[in-house]
């Protein structure tokens, strides 16, 4: 056949052969490609397997575990804050909080969640951004103290099909007294800030933790803070709980007992209602703070929540500065309440004695400038006691001029002016105690005689806080023993008292003069108590000089001060009152009077109950301390 076909047949044969070869090559190519693809896929799978099982085994196993196991924190209750009699000032109560599980978070859910929980969306996003650095399994507390309506919202939307990132937890929330009661002293808790995280005192904390922000909540944060618990649950692929795997109960924080007497604190709060200022009551025998209030105040409950935005803005922009704890931070001229300390300086210097007298004609000319007395008609011939009782400015101008600023500063410093008292509250101010050195150091100026005249009546460069004034007067009436003011009662270590060698007759002279302020026809006769046990010194301090006010065409109301002690013999309580723009010191005395009355009445109740218990009518206590008469005689 081949032969028969000839040349054409041969060509056809060769063509067929060539075609068969091409088909064979193509088939081989296909098989080769398939082999390569298979090998490639295999290598890809092996690579993925390597990545999953060997290279990042820890990461993926952890992720898988977290998908299966969910952890919920159980916040520990903070310790309570009690008064000296064990009455509860700051409590806890049961409430609900909502957590945001960032593992399950879908960004598009944030807006409706914020809407449903009445949260500010922008603020929520900002908070989430602050949390970015934390592991995702750590949930964010979205809102605390949920209302029944908010609980209903969370419960009805936290199903796997709606907002699975929401989780409801039961917590213990802080209950603070209402009406801003003792707000500055107690302080509040809040979410730790970025700046606080860098501070040594919060080294144990993590972002999102609730910590004491101010006041005692901050001061004793470590004691009050408990240890959070945790609940681990097994969840299915829908996020539904199937089994509890682990449970660690929360350990509540320790309670602290204060030296505060709620009865006195309450009266101080009521007496300062509607005013701007502060009241501090101390036991001069040991430095225990019996009452400490500052007004205007703010609602602690509103600031103690994580979503305090609106309230915070309102408070921080309030021109009356309600956040300022005036009891320890208001640095203002103490006015005539400083005169007892000038008198102490004068007596201790030996330049002046009890009988030293100066004439007051309503003012006096010093260094070419006329300094007025508050009584334009003048006090006439004035002794030290009378000068104290009637607050004669001219007398103290003369005294100051005679002894000089450094003598005043020496004894004022001993009494605690110009430095922090050391009270166990954060951010105490030190005030300003001027001296020749101080002026050169602080103002780069030399001291002028006229400066001394102003300081000798508690004005000029001198500033003090209400607690300094109470502390100073406390040490003075104790005969030169200044105990550090403190708020925590019990076994807490206290700083040792400062003692100074003071002639007790000088102290007696000053105390008598101060008692005459109230009981001897002095400037605060209106606040006299029937038993004559209430003593104190008024102060009416200018905020700015007359020249400044004239130049500015303004009339600024004076600050009213009063520093008191009681009883007259063996004082047990010292009270200082600052009433900003109260205008008249005697009006501030009325506030102190009511606080002292509350103390004396309570003391009488105690004595009566003790006496009744022992079958005795009344058993008077014999507290240690300095009396104005008997004690000195005994000690002498």
């Amino acid at each position, binding site marked *: 056949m081949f032969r028969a076909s000839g040349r054409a047949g041969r060509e056809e044969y060769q063509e067929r052969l060539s075609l068969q070869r091409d088909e064979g090559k193509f088939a081989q190519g296909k098989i080769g490609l398939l082999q390569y693809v298979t090998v490639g896929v295999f290598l890809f799978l092996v690579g993925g397997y390597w990545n999953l099982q060997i290279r990042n085994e820890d990461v993926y196993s952890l992720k898988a575990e977290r998908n299966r196991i969910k952890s919920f924190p159980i916040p520990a209750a903070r310790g309570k804050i009690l008064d000296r009699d064990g009455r509860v000032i700051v409590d806890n109560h049961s409430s609900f909080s909502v957590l945001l599980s960032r593992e399950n978070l879908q960004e598009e859910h944030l807006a409706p969640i914020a809407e449903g929980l009445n949260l500010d969306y922008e603020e929520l996003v900002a908070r989430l951004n602050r949390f970015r650095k934390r592991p995702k399994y750590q949930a964010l507390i979205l809102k605390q103290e949920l209302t029944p309506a908010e609980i209903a*919202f969370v419960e*009805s939307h936290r*199903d796997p099909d709606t907002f699975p990132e929401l989780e409801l937890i039961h917590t213990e929330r802080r209950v603070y007294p209402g009406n801003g009661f003792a707000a500055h002293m107690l302080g509040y808790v809040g979410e730790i800030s970025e700046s606080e995280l860098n501070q040594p005192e919060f080294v144990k904390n993590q972002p999102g933790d609730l910590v004491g922000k101010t006041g005692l909540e901050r001061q004793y944060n470590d004691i009050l803070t408990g240890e959070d618990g945790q609940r681990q649950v097994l969840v299915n692929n829908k996020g539904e709980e199937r089994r509890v795997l682990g449970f660690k109960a929360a350990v509540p924080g320790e309670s602290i007992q204060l030296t505060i007497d709620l009865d006195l604190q309450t009266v101080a709060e*009521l007496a300062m209602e509607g005013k701007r200022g502060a009241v501090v009551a101390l036991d001069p025998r040991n430095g225990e703070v019996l009452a400490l209030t500052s007004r205007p105040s703010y609602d602690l409950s509103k600031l103690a929540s994580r979503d305090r935005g609106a309230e915070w803005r309102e408070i921080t922009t309030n021109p009356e500065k309600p956040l300022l704890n005036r009891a320890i931070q208001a640095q203002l001229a103490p006015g005539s309440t400083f005169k007892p300390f000038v008198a102490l300086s004068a007596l201790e210097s030996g330049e002046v004695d009890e009988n030293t007298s100066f004439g007051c004609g309503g003012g006096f000319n010093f260094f070419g400038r006329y300094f007025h007395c508050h009584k334009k008609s003048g006090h006439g011939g004035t002794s030290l006691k009378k000068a104290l009782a009637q607050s004669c400015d001219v007398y103290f101008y003369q005294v100051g001029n005679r002894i000089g600023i450094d003598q005043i500063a020496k004894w004022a410093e001993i009494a605690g002016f110009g430095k922090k008292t050391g009270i166990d509250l954060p951010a105490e101010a030190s005030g300003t105690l001027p001296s020749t050195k101080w002026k050169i150091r602080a103002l780069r100026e030399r001291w002028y005689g006229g400066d001394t005249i102003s300081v000798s009546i508690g004005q000029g460069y001198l500033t003090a806080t209400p607690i300094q004034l109470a502390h100073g007067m406390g040490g003075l009436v104790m005969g030169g023993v200044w105990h550090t003011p403190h708020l925590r009662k019990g076994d807490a270590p206290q700083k040792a008292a400062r003692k100074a060698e003071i002639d007790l007759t000088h102290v007696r002279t000053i105390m008598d003069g101060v008692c005459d302020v109230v009981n001897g026809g002095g400037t605060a006769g209106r606040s006299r108590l029937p038993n004559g046990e209430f003593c104190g010194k008024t102060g009416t301090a200018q905020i700015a000089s007359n020249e400044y006010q004239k130049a500015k065409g303004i009339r600024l109301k004076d600050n009213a001060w009063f520093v008191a002690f009681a009883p007259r013999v063996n004082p047990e309580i010292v009270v200082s009152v600052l009433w900003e723009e109260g205008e008249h010191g005697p009006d501030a005395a009325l506030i102190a009077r009511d606080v002292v009355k509350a103390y004396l*009445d309570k003391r009488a109740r105690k004595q009566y109950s003790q006496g009744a218990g022992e079958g005795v009518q009344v058993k008077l206590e014999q507290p240690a301390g300095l009396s104005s008469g008997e004690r000195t005689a005994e000690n002498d």
Partner: protein
Amino acid sequence: MIVLLAQLVLLAVQVKNNQDVRLIRVWAVTAITPLARVLEGVRANTIGLAGEYWELWNVRSVNKQLQAELDKTKLENHYLREELATAKRAEAMAAFVQRNPSKTIGARIIGAGAGASSKVVFIDRGSTSGVMRGMAVITPDGIVGKVTSAYPTGSMVVMITDPTFACGVISNKTRIHATAKGQGNNQLLVDYIQNEQTVEVGEVFYTSGDDRIFPKGLPVGTVRVAKPGKLFKEVYIAPTAFDKGLEEVLVVLEGVHQQLPEWNLQTGEGPMAKPLPPPEGSGDAVPVPASPTPATAPASTSSEGVGPTTDADRLLNRYKELGAEQGVTFGAGGKIPNFNAPKTPKPAPEKN
């Protein structure tokens, strides 16, 4: 021989009896009669049995025919009853839709989720009808559930008895706000009611509007159990929506809050007998958009009154009272307060 002998004997008997019948005949008759009787009996019985069988055969077929007719009539009857019930439900639903201010759309239940314990149903309305995920599903008798998935022509509804379901509720008797939660059975737990609060069996809980899914004022359930619990009161309610079966439902496209029916304090009668108030003139009718993106629903307030207090708060109030009794304004001069004065007893309230 024997035969002959027998013949002779028989002949003797015949002679003695003096009968005029031949002996052979007697023998024949005697021998044949029983057999004839048997045969006649067999014949008669066979003919009767065949006749009866024939008749029975006809009765059975007639019975079958009658049974078929009865079944048909029953079916027709059932159908007509269903039609009547449907018409009644439609009438009730139409009346409900007319007086309910919320914008709703009717839907029919077309299926249930797989599994005996499934608390999910499917309805024949979907996204093309405006149904969206999170919308409330109700009937005139109460709430049914909420839409969890919306498809073009159908939607999945999780019912209120599902364990994942919860909604805000309020008692129209005591105005207690709480959260009703599905339990997987035919009861709902009403949670977060303080043990000190009063809830009575027979009381009805309505939607509170707090959840921003259901508009306020729709019946949820009647209290079956109310007893003190460990942390909160244990209150269980029976849902009212399932009392009359569940075939047609309404999907709330745009909810409007309504007033709660008033509880008759005089008679103690429940509110279920009374119709919901018409939307006109209802003071607190507030539109509530369908979840999950509510915009205007107001957050409801709690009825629990003042919050927790401390000893400091109580003492402050006592001293305020003391000041008022003695005419003292603290820190303002005038009368000196006497903190040891006995407390003035409050006057007893006058009896009517």
